[in-house]
C-alpha cells in the first residue's frame, strides 16, 4: 500500500484517498511549438523502473494537487512537495540521491 503525506493538509493518506495524475514536471507545448515538440508533450511519458516524479491529487481529502517522488518498484517514497513548482526542491533531490546516488533529474526527464 502506497502512503503519501499530503503537503497541504499534512494527512498521511493511503492510496485509496488519492488519485494519480501521471508524470510530473511536463512542459506544456502550445502556440508556436513545432509538431514534434507538441507530439512529445501529448504522448511521450517517462515510464521508469525506479525513481519517478509524479502528480497526485488528494481527491478524498483537501482536494489539492501535489507532487511525489517515489520508487515505482519498491514503493519507497522519497518525499512529497508543493505543486507550485517546475522542478523538485533541493531537499527532495537530496533525499533521492542519498538512496540512489546515480539518479539524476536530467536523465529522468529524458527517459521514455
Amino acid at each position, binding site marked *: 500500500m502506497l502512503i503519501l503525506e499530503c503537503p497541504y493538509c499534512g*494527512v498521511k493518506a493511503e492510496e485509496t484517498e488519492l488519485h494519480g495524475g501521471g508524470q510530473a514536471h511536463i512542459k506544456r507545448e502550445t502556440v508556436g511549438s513545432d509538431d514534434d515538440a507538441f507530439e512529445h508533450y501529448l504522448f511521450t511519458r517517462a515510464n521508469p523502473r525506479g525513481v519517478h516524479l509524479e502528480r497526485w491529487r488528494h481527491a478524498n481529502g483537501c482536494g489539492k494537487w501535489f507532487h511525489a517522488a517515489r520508487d515505482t518498484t519498491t514503493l519507497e517514497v522519497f518525499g512529497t512537495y508543493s505543486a507550485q513548482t517546475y522542478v523538485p526542491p533541493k531537499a527532495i533531490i537530496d533525499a533521492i540521491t542519498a538512496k540512489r546516488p546515480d539518479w539524476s533529474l536530467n536523465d529522468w526527464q529524458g527517459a521514455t
Partner: protein
Amino acid sequence: MSNAVSALQGATSEGFAMITEAGLRGMITLRGDLSSAKLKKAVKSAAGVDVPAQRACNSAGAKAVAWMSPDELLVMVPYAEVVDATSRLAKALEGEHALAVNVSDARAVFTIEGEGGREVLAKLSPVDLSREAFTTGMFRRTRLAQAAVAFWLRDETTFELVCFRSEAQYVFDALSMSAKPGSEVGFL
C-alpha cells in the same frame, strides 16, 4: 416558501453505536485567504469561534467552523440563520478574494454516538482513529466506504459526519452495517 426537510428526516439506527441523521444544519462553504485579518474577523462574528488550525474544528454550542483545506472553511450555524449568516459573511468580505456559499441543502449530517463510534468509522475509512491519534476537536476529510465525507470528534464519544445529500442513504446504510451488534472488533 417550501418546507425544508433533511435527507433522511432524522432516521436512526442503534447498534453498538447510535447512528442518527442529525436533521437540518446550516452550512456555509467559505473560500479565501485564511490568514487574512478581515476573513478571521468575519468568521468570528458569524460563528463565534476563531478560524481553526489545520485539520481542526472549533465549535461553540450550535455553531462551528471546520478546516477543509488551506483555502477553505466550513462554517456551521443553525439552519434558520444560514441565509442571513451567508449574506453577512459575503458583505464582510467585500473586496477580498473570497466566496461564501450556502450549501446546507446539498449536505446531510450524521452523529455517531457511543463508545463504539471510533470503531464504526475505522471499519469504513482509511484513518487512524485510535484514542491517541484522533482527539477531540480533530477534523478529517476522507472517504467512508465509497463516499466522500468529513467527520470530527465533538466530544470523547460523539462524532459528527457530513456527506453529500445524494449519498445520505448509502452513508447511513454503511454506518448502520458497520455498527451491527456482534461485529465489534474490539481493537480501538
